[in-house]
């Protein structure tokens, strides 16, 4: 909680079993988050050039990923998020029953295509610090929705009192394509659903304004609001793990509002017990950024803390093969197709008494290792892409294609496995692993 003299600080928020507030929390300054720091050149030349001066060689990445486009006008999220903001409707719709309005907002977001919609009660510690957002054009994709003067001289406490609810609406990305993570196929799954989420949030923001209520963007930390409203629990991999989608949910910029709503509560999906034992993400992380050890206290929050810098630093080295790593999201045992057996398993885990859970988790982990595998090597084919082609080689594997391809083509792919750059032998050279 940011301490401001003269204002009453509310008690620390309840964020579920996976995250505990143990000390004073300073509001996060968005200028100190990874992308803005990189756009100022603070993370070195390689990362700066990757972020600012790289055009992807993949046409689909050029239309769907922030910052690697050839022409920004071909990137929908930039078009949507940089559009001028609408005015709040002067004729406010009266809300007599906040519960009915909450059901309505959730139905609206689902109608627009959102997969997950929750409402959190705002807490001053969720808010970003009052400093102005980065003016730099390259950092615009982060918090680009925020207009400079949203705080209007108020403290975070006063803001959380005036705008007491945060609507978290988001999309999940595609399970089958995610199996070819560290490949352009996985990137497509990630980036396309991210663009969709950004369009939905922009439309939802506009709709709340049409109802006659404020809708502020770029204000709240999405993970904190997601935890408080029960999107999921925070896993070892530093991602929110949802009951139905696992770690494959986006956490885009939520909407802070004064619309009367009923907040949701944190959930218990058994993630806390699973992460204590599993460590699959930590083993698979190509940069060794996910901790093997226990939770740490950082900024007053007790949680698993990943090393974001090493996670970030691999990107320029693999730029020719993919944009988003997603290894920790893919290998997470909670990330499964949304089918009955995963519902049954999560139900069993979350209804199991907590002292008995470690036994169940070990059994489930063994089943997951046996059937899904300890690491992903599935071969995925989509459009002209094929993850069975070794990184750096080119070959047309489209059935029935008789076209003369101009580029040099290598031999046929060997075996029915997928290759995910960087390969294990490369990452062992890239990061020092302990033990």
């Amino acid at each position, binding site marked *: 909680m940011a301490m401001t003299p003269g204002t009453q600080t509310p008690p620390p928020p309840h964020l579920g079993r996976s995250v505990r507030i143990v000390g004073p929390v300073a509001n996060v300054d968005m200028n100190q988050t990874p992308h803005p720091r990189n756009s100022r050149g603070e993370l070195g030349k390689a990362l700066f050039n990757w972020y600012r001066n790289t055009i992807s060689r993949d*046409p689909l990445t*050029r239309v769907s990923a922030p910052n690697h486009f050839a022409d920004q*006008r071909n990137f929908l999220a930039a078009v949507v998020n940089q559009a001028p903001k609408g005015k709040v409707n002067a004729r406010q719709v009266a809300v007599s029953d906040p519960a009915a309005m909450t059901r309505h907002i959730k139905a609206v977001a689902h*109608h627009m295509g959102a997969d997950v919609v929750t409402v959190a009660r705002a807490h001053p510690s969720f808010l970003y610090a009052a400093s102005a957002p980065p003016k730099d054009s390259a950092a615009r994709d982060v918090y680009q929705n925020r207009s400079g003067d949203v705080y209007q001289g108020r403290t975070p406490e006063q803001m959380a009192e005036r705008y007491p609810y945060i609507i978290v609406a988001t999309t999940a990305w595609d399970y089958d394509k995610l199996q070819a993570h560290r490949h352009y196929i996985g990137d497509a799954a990630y980036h396309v659903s991210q663009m969709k989420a950004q369009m939905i949030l922009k439309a939802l923001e506009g709709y709340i304004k049409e109802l006659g209520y404020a809708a502020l963007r770029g204000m709240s930390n999405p993970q904190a609001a997601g935890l408080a409203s029960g999107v999921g629990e925070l896993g070892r991999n530093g991602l929110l793990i949802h009951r139905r989608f696992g770690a494959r949910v986006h956490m885009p910029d939520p909407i802070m509002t004064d619309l009367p709503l009923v907040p949701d509560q944190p959930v218990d999906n058994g993630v806390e017990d699973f992460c204590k034992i599993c460590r699959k993400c930590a083993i698979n992380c190509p940069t060794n950024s996910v901790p093997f050890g226990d939770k740490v206290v950082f900024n007053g929050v007790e949680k698993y803390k990943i090393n974001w810098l090493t996670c970030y630093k691999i990107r320029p080295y693999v730029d020719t093969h993919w944009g988003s790593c997603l290894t920790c999201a893919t290998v997470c045992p909670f990330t499964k197709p949304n089918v009955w057996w995963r519902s049954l398993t999560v139900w069993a885990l979350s209804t199991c008494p907590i002292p008995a859970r470690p036994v169940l988790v070990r059994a489930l982990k063994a089943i997951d290792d046996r059937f899904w595998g300890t690491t992903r090597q599935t071969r995925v084919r989509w459009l002209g892409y094929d993850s069975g082609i070794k990184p750096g080689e080119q070959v047309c594997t489209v059935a029935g294609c008789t076209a003369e391809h101009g580029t040099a083509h290598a031999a046929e792919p060997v075996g029915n496995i997928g290759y995910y750059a960087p390969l294990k032998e490369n990452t062992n050279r890239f990061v020092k692993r302990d033990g």
Partner: protein
Amino acid sequence: MALRSGWLKAPWRRAERRSHDPYWDFFIHTPPADRANSVIDVIRQAPEGNVFPTKADLHTPEVTTSHVKQMARYLGADLVGVTTLEGDDPGYPFAIVCAVRADDDPREAQGIGGQVPVQNGLFVTFVLSAWIRELGFRASIAASPDAPRLAAAARLGTLNRTGRLTTAEYGTRVHVADVIRTDLPLVPA
């Protein structure tokens, strides 16, 4: 609250939920007081991006057509077809027509909710046309009154007496998104 019985879902539950929603009619039918609160104008008025200077290494037109259709479905189109444009547009030999399911007719339901099919259609056509431009071919989107005619030519369905597209999958509850005109080598339906 509707009766919930685990895996069994009452088939009428969804409709019932909406009829009990006191704000649903506002969402569907009340036009926005400020057009800037709708993303539709924003996307429609956005300038068209450049065509990537290097043409991508394409497969045969048959394969490219199937890839374009796969991509459109992945982006959220429910129906997609390709047809030729005869002479009316020099330099754009083909039209890609996408259609999305529309529970409410966007021409009558002017609210943000009623326009959601238009919004979804624009998402598909914007990203699909941008992707074709990044492949190195021309592609532009424009709202045109003869979209249902082109949709019928692309074999998405047939036109009924009032000139609306009628499809086998969704009847007339379908919105034809803006037509993409392109010179990407395709095979019309």
